[in-house]
């Protein structure tokens, strides 16, 4: 936690204490830490001279912010209209089943997390799943296992 707070302070050094930077500050903290710890939000509140409830209110309003760290591999299943009309829901359920978690959850070993996302804007490849920024196009329920195997392989290679 102390380390995390240090990096929050480092980030705050790059800003003027103006209210309009609140969202940008939170975005930078989340980019660095992967989530918004309560202590970080308190620190931001102090920096901007606003109550912590204000910071929390803004953070909970926007979908981007999360309050628990994501897994090492973060699965975003697109639920845009095109993906939905092409069977995105079945793909999402497939991941829920294979990972053993529900949308918004993280596996106990912190390796995988699952979220739904609005639209990533590549509808011609629908339905798509994005894992740590990489897009897996034209998903099908039967391809869920394949994608997971690929990710697990990457994970193991990364360790070697």
């Amino acid at each position: 936690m102390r380390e995390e707070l240090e990096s929050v302070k480092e980030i705050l050094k790059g800003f003027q204490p103006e209210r309009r930077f609140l969202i940008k500050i939170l975005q930078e903290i989340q980019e660095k830490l992967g989530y918004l710890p309560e202590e970080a939000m308190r620190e931001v509140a102090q920096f901007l001279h606003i109550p912590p409830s204000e910071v929390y209110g803004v953070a909970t309003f926007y979908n981007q912010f999360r309050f628990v760290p994501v897994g090492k591999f973060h699965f975003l299943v697109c639920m845009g209209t095109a993906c939905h009309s092409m069977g995105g829901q079945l793909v999402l359920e497939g991941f829920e089943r294979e990972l053993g978690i529900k949308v918004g959850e993280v596996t106990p070993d912190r390796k995988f997390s699952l979220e739904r996302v609005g639209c990533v804007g590549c509808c011609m490849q629908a339905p798509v799943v994005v894992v740590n920024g990489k897009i897996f196009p034209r998903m099908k329920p039967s391809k869920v296992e394949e994608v997971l195997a690929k990710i697990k392989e990457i994970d193991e290679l990364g360790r070697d």
Partner: protein
Amino acid sequence: MNWEEIKNKAKEKWEKLESSVSIRIGTPTCGRAAGALETLEIFKERLKKEGLEVELIEVGCMGLCFAEPLVVINKPESGFPPICYKNVGFEEAHALMDRFLLGEDPCFEIALGTIDFSFTGAPIVSELERFQKEVRLVLKNCGWIDPEDINHYIARGGYESLRKVLLEKDPVEVIAQIGQANLRGRGGAGFLASRKWAQARRQKEGPKYLICNADEGDPGAFMDRVVLESDPHSVIEGMIIAGYAIGAHKGFIYTRMEYPLVLKRVEKALDQARSYGLLGENIFNSGFSFDIEIVRGAGAFVCGESTAMIYSIEGKRGMPRVRPPRSAEKGLWGKPTVVNNVKTLALVTRIMEMGVEEFLKIGTPTTSGTAVFALAGKIEQIGLCEVPMGTTLREIVFEVGGGIRGRKEFKAVQIGGPAGGCVGEEALDLPVDFDRFKEAGAIMGSGGMIILDESNCMVETARFFLDFLSKEDCGKCTFGRLGIKQLLLILEDITKGNGKEEDLALLEELSKDLMEGCLCNLGKTAPNPILTTLRYFRDEYLAHIREKRCPALVCKELIAYWIDPEKCEKGCDHCVLTCPTEAIKTDERTRKKTIIQEKCVKCGTCLEVCPPQYSAVVKVSPKEKILELESGKAQ
């Protein structure tokens, strides 16, 4: 450098590109998803290995997403015009290297067509059926220039109209011209741009602000992303012109955090514009100063609403407020603010370039110019198109988009995002026009167009949008917060087979309440998906309610999977091996498969993997039909 020098340098660079061997690869977000970066790497490696002098440039999106990764090769000495190739993957890239760049065979079998001038022996891209209907104003440069090189934009006439505006025109004159051009906002509502501008201009108190709304939150819409990724300077130029007209010195581009490439490319474009003195202090020595800052949204659909967007830029929760006062009177930090959509601003640039008269020749009397649509869903040629206002939906779906994918039946077009509507066959001859769409119960929206076929359930589609809207609702007004939720619950009941006939009247009544009672347009238009599906597809609702049957075989609670023992092949185990819940059992004696309904989660995997020569897996609705089928087989 003065302007003449900048222009000459840009032209030189462009001409050199046009006269030398070049490869253009489209690498917008959608192209990347199709593997464009891998294709780019292949060309890079091969060019290095072969020691060829070739200009390899990354361009934006031509709108032909179905053909991604898209590559255009220009080899002047070959005698061929530039040739556009579709779906260039590993093999195709190597073939193009070996046969065309190193050899003389232009590989016409993988070409989409040639570009610019006619050449016998291959189709010409501009003569493809879709381009017969298209007029490209906003998308003029998209996919042809390098969006990360301002010189390309300048060489094609960019920033020339800004210069004319700043040096020769009075701001009031600019507003008048945009008014004469009858430019209506392309964000969806179709409000006259000149009226907003004039109102902001009239305000005495400054500073004034201009916001470019690039918070393209409609799922299934990606026009603004493509424009900003492929031709950011068109929008930047339009913003400076708009800023000059209203008297603002500061502009913001509010874009989605889901669009990292937009951020990168716009940031770069702004830097390049600044370095040429096109942004910042005293632009073109006109005395006018203007600068632009990018603001990244944080994932809230409602922030596409202008008052909510303004709060978001201020660092607050993005909740819409009651109007009046309009943003043009009291907007960002209480100052006069104009919010314009990406395409509106790009069109401002075009109007100044081509002149009001030429612009008015395109479109209908009530809505001039073009409309950009993102076509997605069950359509053959997914991608972007730009058509003159007045083009019919039928032309867009069947001529520009090439019709329905996979020989299925057309069912509906979903237009205008979640708050738009689904119109059916009988509305296909509707011309694209802000007012005519309203009559049909839909809204133009910002341009997302999802084509649905017979395998899409309209009740489920309406439920999907209401689910989306209830998640994205800001919670400020009661009708929005609770009304949307109630509509959703009723729809859920119907899709689950728990609907009652009086629910339909209740849906309609509650919808009317929302349209009157909600505070912002997100809420007021939220019932549109319900009202339009009820209007065009009422029988589907009734089938769900009366017969517990989903005609499109989508609603999980109302369907079941069944394996036809006559068709099931005993030697094949595809479904058994892939079923995620081990719900398929094999008869020991006959080796035929049956589905254990209690275990089945209806994921559809068995249907998908069953080899087409057997096609033994079928979906049925209502569920009870299985009993019928089974007893039928037993007899």
